[in-house]
């Protein structure tokens, strides 16, 4: 049986882009949460974790409501920037971002909070802004936490399926990622094909994770 590689590449692309964007969004947000003494911080922390407690397909349903061209946000986006979030790769990225956010934020925030206060203080007394302190001093010193954030986000995005299925519409080459392809094969009781896909996905992911952990070990030792 010939293997369709497209869903696998699509998945890796989705996971890479999502993880990258999550890093860009997540690092400042985690930094802010770790450094600020804002009184309502526990509320923000709780809100970030909330999407997790709903089943992905239900979150997908609500996103569908929000993103659909007749919905407020979706209509506005369509009119102003001509971006359509339902049934498109962009939509998958946005949905994955939202859903994987806690996996990026929480580990990094925890890592930052565990660093000795004197590093931050030393950087401040050296006239450096909290932002520069975050990038140059604090984040580079919590590599294990960063790694955790990256690995969890990446892996979780690869495996995410309910959400992607709902928002994406299973379009080959656009939104038909590997998790959906496997799912379809299982539904069809084509277990052989499903096994092959699963093995491929596992193998690739294992290789990527091993690489990441291996590099991490090299860097930190």
């Amino acid at each position, binding site marked *: 049986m010939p293997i369709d590689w497209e869903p696998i590449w699509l998945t890796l692309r989705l996971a890479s882009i999502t993880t990258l964007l999550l890093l860009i969004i997540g690092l400042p947000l985690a930094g802010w949460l770790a450094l600020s003494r804002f009184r309502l911080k526990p509320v923000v922390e709780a809100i970030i974790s909330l999407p997790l407690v709903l089943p992905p397909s239900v979150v997908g349903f609500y996103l569908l409501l929000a993103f659909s061209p007749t919905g407020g946000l979706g209509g506005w986006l369509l009119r102003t920037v001509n971006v359509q979030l339902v049934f498109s790769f962009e939509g998958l990225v946005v949905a994955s971002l939202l859903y994987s956010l806690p996996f990026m934020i929480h580990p990094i925030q925890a890592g930052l909070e565990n660093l000795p206060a004197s590093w931050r203080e030393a950087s401040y007394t050296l006239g450096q802004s909290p932002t520069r302190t975050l990038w140059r001093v604090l984040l580079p010193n919590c590599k294990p936490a960063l790694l955790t954030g990256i690995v969890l986000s990446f892996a979780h995005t690869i495996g995410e399926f309910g959400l992607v*299925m709902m928002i994406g519409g*299973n379009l080959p080459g656009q939104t038909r990622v590997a998790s959906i392809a496997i799912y379809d094969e299982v539904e069809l009781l084509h277990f052989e094909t499903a096994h092959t896909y699963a093995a491929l996905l596992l193998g690739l992911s294992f290789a990527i994770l091993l690489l990441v952990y291996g590099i991490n070990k090299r860097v930190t030792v």
Partner: protein
Amino acid sequence: AVAANAQFVMEELRNAFQKKTGITVESIVNSSGKLTTQIQQGAPYDVFLSADMAYPTTLHEQGLTTAAPVVYAYGSLVLWTLGEFPLSTDLKGLLNGNIRHVAIANPATAPYGEAAVSLLKYTKLLEKVQPKIVYGESIAQVNQYVLTGSAEVGFTAKSVVIDPSLKGKGHWIDLPAKGYSPIAQGVVILKRTSQLKAAEQFTAFLGSPAARRILQQFGYRTTKS
């Protein structure tokens, strides 16, 4: 165990059956494929109402059922929209430029999707409509696409659109049964059942006039044409 598309009618059938026999029925809803896998692995279900014949036939061939599957109804396909688009049975309306997305169930896994595709082929519109098609995991997801406005039109089961809770939500038309083979809904009793008698009573009930009336109310046909 009930396939996702039959869940609306199932509630009604369940009530009627319970009234008649006093036996309570618990329905477990999932996609036909997943239910089939679960049954293969020994799920504690008694009767399996599938959305097609293929899954129960597979189970029968594996010797997990008491008898070959019986057709208890035929589903029929409708075209449904929430917008103002004119719908016609020749499906030409789908070419309307304001229709960006046409939702159908995954033809590989869902019988209603398969039917929709064969209808599109029959009307020779498949190639032109293809770029607009989005696939739902099942009929249920197609319904959600249509209801949230994500897809302007969708092919769904008649049993869905005539559900009272959806009255007044958009409009729909019946599609001619010429272009697709009616969607046979099979039922089987599972060998591992501990309540063989009740199960048999229930399958028998499905063929009774009372059940047929309910099925028809929900947009099913009880004969092939």
